[in-house]
């Protein structure tokens, strides 16, 4: 018998604004996330990842469709859902005037917990923060703040934790540390984790199952290896000094598809090893400025599905909280 779903979403749509002029942020999303999984939602900025988390946590209303989290309906049993979920934000959100212990105290009050002190001590011990529990958190490093935020999310022993871009803006070392923490808490506490990211390597490293989301729609879903095996193709990126006709490229045996991307050509081929000698015979080699080959990866899966790279059309960071988060990190 399969484990019950921790998150069940069916035909979920979310529209901001009026039906005529609004924006459809989620378009008939259907997902089933099993209990105890680390599930990744991979997509570019503006794809709908954060909107899905807002809807599942009850922060935003559902326009149409159904969603259940931890066995409860998000719309009609919102308080029950919120008692069973934890949340880790993209930017660390703590009360800077409070110590770590006071932040945990407040979280315990908000979750209406009676005996929380032992659990809080255990979490602080687990994250090596116990010695500094009485220090104001504005003196903490970024990594320590992230650890405390995860402690807050785990305090009430939730069934599901939502992590919204948990490593955005972090340096490489802190990001790696956080990956270890996410893997660790998943093993230690057995909690279901829904993680959004636009970092390919993060989804690949952490998630057992991944859904790729673009423009509010789930365009592919499966384990990282299943997704990679779907395309069975290499992607060749080609830049030439002279223009090449699409028909020339398509005429080369082994080419499955080709499309322009900026000044380059993106060519999907069955085997790059067989394709490259044919390419060099088809066009003069001195016309080739640059050529690169990508073996199947989540990046090429996304490229194959959307014709774009992840992050290719990301807009500059507008969110004021992300700006403040950056400022805070810059100060610390």
């Amino acid at each position, binding site marked *: 018998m399969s484990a019950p779903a921790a998150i069940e979403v069916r035909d979920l749509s979310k529209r901001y604004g009026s039906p005529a002029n609004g924006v459809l942020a989620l378009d008939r999303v259907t997902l089933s996330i099993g209990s105890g999984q680390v599930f990744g939602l991979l997509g570019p900025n503006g794809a709908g990842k954060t909107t899905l988390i807002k809807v599942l946590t009850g*922060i935003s209303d559902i326009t149409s469709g159904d969603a259940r989290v931890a066995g409860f309906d998000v719309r009609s049993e919102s308080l029950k859902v919120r008692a069973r979920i934890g949340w880790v934000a993209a930017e660390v959100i703590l009360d800077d005037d409070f110590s770590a212990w006071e932040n945990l105290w407040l979280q315990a009050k*908000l979750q*209406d917990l009676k005996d929380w002190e032992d659990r809080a001590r255990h979490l602080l011990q687990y994250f090596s923060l116990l010695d500094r529990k009485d220090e104001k958190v504005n003196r903490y490093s970024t990594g320590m703040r992230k650890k405390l935020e995860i402690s807050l999310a785990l305090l009430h022993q939730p069934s599901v934790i939502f992590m919204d871009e948990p490593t955005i803006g972090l340096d490489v070392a802190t990001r790696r540390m956080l990956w270890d923490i996410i893997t660790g808490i998943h093993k230690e506490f057995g909690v279901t984790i829904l993680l959004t990211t636009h970092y390919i390597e993060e989804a690949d490293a952490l998630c057992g199952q991944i859904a790729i989301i673009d423009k509010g729609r789930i365009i592919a879903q499966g384990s990282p290896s299943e997704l990679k095996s779907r395309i069975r193709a290499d992607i060749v990126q080609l830049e030439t000094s002279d223009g090449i006709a699409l028909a020339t490229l398509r005429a080369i045996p082994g080419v499955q598809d080709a499309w322009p991307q900026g000044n380059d050509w993106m060519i999907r081929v069955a085997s790059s090893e067989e394709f490259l000698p044919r390419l060099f015979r088809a066009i003069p080699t001195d016309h080739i400025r640059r050529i690169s080959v990508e073996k199947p990866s989540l990046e090429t899966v996304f490229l194959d599905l959307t014709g774009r790279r992840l992050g290719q059309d990301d807009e500059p960071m507008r969110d004021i909280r992300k700006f403040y988060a950056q400022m805070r990190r810059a100060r610390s």
Partner: protein
Amino acid sequence: MRSQLWGLYVREVLRTFRNPFVLLITVVQPFMWLAFFGSGFAQYAKDLASVYGTSNYIEFLLPGVLSTSMLSVGMFGSMSTIQDKRFGFMKRILITPTSKEVIFLSKALGSATRGLIQIPVMIAAAIAFGVSLSLSPAEWCVWILGLLFTAIGFSSLFLAITARSVDWQTPGVVSNFITMPLMFSSAALYPSSGFPTWMKVISAFNPISYTATLGRDLVLHGSVDWVAAGYLAIFASGLLAIGYVVSAKWLKVE
């Protein structure tokens, strides 16, 4: 609900006490009214003792300044709410079994408490300016309760007006808009007996007038104006109910 309300209320109060600058401004502003406005008018009041009911203008002014201070505390509650929205803390609160109504109540009660911390400082300052206060503990309780009702009422009003706002400037603009007319159309700074009829009508509905009258009757005559006390209780309950409903429906999360 009690657990969440207590947690958020304590957070509001602690944040005030841990920010020395806010604490200083909260206390110094009404003190300056008493010092500058009170001292400036003191000389003229001596000639108008029959109008003011005392030859010591600061004795007359103290209840009025305390009343108007309760009017401005609402702004701090709104600013604290907007700060929570902009820094994402509102989302952190709402991704727990905490309702928007509880957030509203904690903010209203938190800013009302912030208002009350001005009372001992103002009383001490007034005594230093030569005011003698001989109130019984019950009379003190009635006065403080009247001030608390005023603070709760105006905090609720501010929170309801700014429920959908995420703009830092809004509470200041709202404060500027409502403070001046309410202060000058009340009996806070001068007796309302000399007002033209249209101002008397406004003053008859103005809660600041009732707060000032309640305190002044206690300070000058040692008597309790139960009508004023009742009016303030109704004002606080009414606006608390309005704020509760408005927050449940319209409090914006971010």
